[in-house]
């Protein structure tokens, strides 16, 4: 085996490119998870029996499948079944987003249930419709209650983007692995990748506590966030 050495600035550039993909992937995935998870949580809390059942089954099935298996199903199995598939990047976003939606729905369900029954009674007695109550009273409070756990979920999603290397996404871990394979220096490059992950996660935690303080309201939670 012939090993090459890589100049440090090239290595850093490669790692940062990977980190950029990691960020993009994680943001799109968490947003997709939000777009699915929040309605699922509302279905589970306020839906009729059938909707609650559908939501419950969805949550449990998705949470029961390993992320790697979800990726393989989306990227390899579904194209075989239907003839067309998603490009690797979108397969990664969809896989991670769907997986996260099942966890986010649990987070939001907790937040929704933390809204006091009396708040709903007061909103209804003003003459608000169901949707108005959800929009103007339930969500503003439930989202604040959910914020700490939601930021935590984002950090988990961010770290789990590394699994996307299995379907060929060039993200941070993939770049580190590539560098290791051509230089034979596993400690150096994996450590560098780990430091980059850590910096991103710590910055996010800081951002989360800032958001918590800025939008938190005494008595409605959301003020304390920890990674």
């Amino acid at each position, binding site marked *: 085996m012939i090993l090459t050495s890589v100049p440090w600035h090239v290595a850093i550039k490669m790692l940062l490119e990977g980190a950029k993909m990691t960020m993009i992937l994680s943001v799109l995935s968490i947003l997709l998870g939000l777009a699915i998870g929040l309605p699922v949580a509302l279905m589970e809390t306020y839906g009729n029996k059938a909707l609650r059942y559908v939501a419950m089954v969805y949550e449990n099935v998705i949470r029961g499948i390993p992320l790697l298996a979800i990726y393989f199903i989306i990227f390899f199995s579904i194209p075989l079944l239907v003839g067309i598939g998603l490009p690797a990047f979108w397969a990664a976003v969809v896989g991670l987003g769907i997986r996260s939606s099942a966890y986010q729905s649990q987070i939001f369900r907790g937040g929704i249930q933390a809204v*006091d029954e*009396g*708040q709903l*009674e*007061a*909103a*209804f*007695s*003003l*003459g*608000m*419709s169901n949707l*108005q109550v959800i929009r*103007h*009273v339930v969500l*503003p*409070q439930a989202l*604040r209650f959910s914020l700490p756990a939601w930021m935590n979920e984002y950090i988990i999603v961010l770290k789990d983007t590394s699994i996307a290397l299995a379907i060929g996404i060039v993200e941070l871990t993939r770049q580190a692995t590539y560098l290791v394979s051509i230089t034979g220096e596993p400690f150096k490059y994996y450590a560098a990748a780990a430091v980059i992950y850590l910096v991103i996660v710590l910055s996010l935690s800081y951002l989360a506590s800032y958001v918590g303080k800025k939008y938190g*309201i*005494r*008595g*409605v939670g959301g003020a304390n966030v920890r990674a």
Partner: protein
Amino acid sequence: MPTLGHEEETPVGTGHRDVVMRIENLVKNFGKKPVLRGVSFDITRGETKVVIGPSGAGKSTMLRCLNRLIEPDGGKIFFNGVNILDRNVNIHEIRSKIGFVFQHFNVFKHLTALENVKIGLKVVKGLSDDEATEKAIKALKMVHLEEDAYDRYPAELSGGQQQRVAIARALAMEPEIILFDEPTSALDPQLAGEVLDVMRDLAKKKVTMLIVTHEIGFALNAADEVLFFYNGVIWERGSPNDILHRPKREETKEFLQRIADISVLQEAER
């Protein structure tokens, strides 16, 4: 010939007496347990009616049936002549005309005092922000909320202030009647006093009110009529003086005695 006006009156009541709400034979069961067993009474415009009675008598349930926060199992509730239990009634619209004040205030925790009063005006009545602010401030003045409290969140307000915000929130909607569910039970006597003063004010201004309360003193000097609830029915009713000073039935006497004992105890503790 009927006019196109939306304030068309359906004839209900005894003619010239202006009945805002007529409750007929109201029935509610929780599972197999009857809570309301046929309650009937009228609320006249401008009247302050007080409901007293032991816990479990069905007072709160009755109140919640009147704007269908709880669905009754039987009977009729006429609001301006319309039976609000009819299927084709728009209950949201009816509720916007019936104020409700809760025992535990239930002011919206994520909104400031001012925003709490504005939200119904904006979301339900569709008022502009400026119009809503103007009406909200008017309502907050009526409940004597201190101006520096307008921009505070409920967690930063005393219980008495929160309850006054809740009353302002109801008032601002310009309802035809306000229902009060033990509005001072969660407050210590001093803060309860603030709230009772506001309610006395409203009674003088002839705001139509139906009030469930244990405040006998308030009932004596502000109520037009007192209903004593017992066992899911109106056990005894009459003028405040008659019910509170000269009750006819044994259960009413017993209840008033117990209330008196409690307030003597509270007095002694202080």
